[in-house]
Every structure is written in C-alpha cells, then in structure tokens.
C-alpha cells in the first residue's frame, strides 16, 4: 500500500521523501484524533477503508492536484485501525519552490480526500460508538 498504513505515521520521513533542493517551502498537514466531536466526548477512533479503492482514489486525487499545481511535490499517508486521542490519522506534505502553491495544494488535497476516498471512522466514547456521518444520511 502506498497511501494507507496500519502503523503510526512518520511525518519526518514523509517530508524527507518530497523536499528537493529547489524547494523553498513545504506545508505539512496532519489530522489528529481529537477528544470531542459535535459535543460528544471521544476516546478513540477506528478507521476502516475499502483499501484497493482508497488507494486508487488517493492516486487519482494526487494526480488531479499535481496537474493543477505542477511545481508541487506531494506525499500523503492515511493510517487505519484503532487510534487514540492525539494520534495522527493522516499526514499530507506539499513542497514547492514558493510557498503559496504548497498551501493551496495541501488544502485541496485534504478537502478532496475528505470528499471521496472510501475511508470511514467509528468514534468511541463514554456514550458508546458510532459511524461518523451515517445517522445524518437518511433520505
């Protein structure tokens, strides 16, 4: 797997994998498990994925963002499984000669990923557990 991992994410290694001598800036975004969601306390999150399709979607998104920002080098890694508060679920690194493109590309990456990559999370807290987004999805 290129974009998914079951192990803790090593952001420093991700950064090293993209930053080139011609780059003057990079932006690292990390999504972190936080202790609350819509008013409920959260203790941990279980991340599930349709793995082969998630890999394909990630690849498609990296391609889309790269063609919009050709000067930007991109790396992204999403962790799956059980994560506790404070652990990193996703890291995205965008590096470029000038900073503006890295900010824009990094933001576009996370927005797109949240929109379409088949990854789900089940939040666990004192009140039980729940798949995020499902309850509001009735038609």
């Amino acid at each position: 797997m290129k974009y998914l991992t079951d192990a803790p994410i090593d952001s420093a290694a991700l950064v090293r994998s993209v930053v080139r001598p011609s780059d003057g800036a990079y932006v690292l975004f990390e999504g972190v498990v936080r202790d609350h969601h819509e008013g409920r306390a959260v203790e941990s999150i279980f991340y599930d994925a349709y793995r082969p399709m998630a890999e394909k979607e990630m690849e498609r998104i990296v391609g889309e963002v790269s063609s919009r920002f050709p000067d930007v080098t991109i790396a992204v890694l999403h962790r799956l499984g059980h994560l506790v508060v404070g652990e990193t679920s996703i890291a995205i690194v965008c590096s470029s000669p000038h900073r503006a493109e890295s900010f824009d590309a990094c933001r576009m990456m996370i927005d797109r990923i949240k929109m379409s990559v088949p990854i789900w999370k089940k939040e666990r807290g004192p009140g039980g557990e729940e798949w995020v987004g499902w309850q509001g999805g009735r038609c």
Partner: protein
Amino acid sequence: MKVSLLFFAVLRDIAGRDRDELDLPDGARPRDVWEQLRARYRELGDYREPPMTAVNEEYVPPDTPLRDGDELAFIPPVAGG
C-alpha cells in the same frame, strides 16, 4: 449473473459480514441490490436512496446496469482525514 457485494463500515456492522455472492437477473442495477438490502435489514429502512455506489473500485451512478463478475460496494458517507 454473479456479482460480489462487499460490506464496509456501518453496512458491515449491519450485515454482520464482509461480503455476499449474489445471483442476479441480467440488467440488475445497484439500486435494485440496495432495495434487497433495505427489505432485509430494518436499520436501512429509512435510507431510500442508495449511498454512493462503487463497481469494480470506481464510483458509478446507482442505475448503471451490473455485469457478470462485477464487484459492487455501497459507500456510506466517507469520513477520512
């Protein structure tokens, strides 16, 4: 025709398993499979419209006819990141 139906996230919890091997009439669509699921699992009763639909790991409209050997998955609201 034979179609594999994969269950993920909340749908796997509801179905209690990872996948079904379906035997469907020619011309069946993902929407028809969703209707079968709604009839079988009362937790899906309120969800008249199918979620996003993937066939062979690509998003497709839920009225796209299925073909023999397809791998079908309903994609509940995604929550990556």
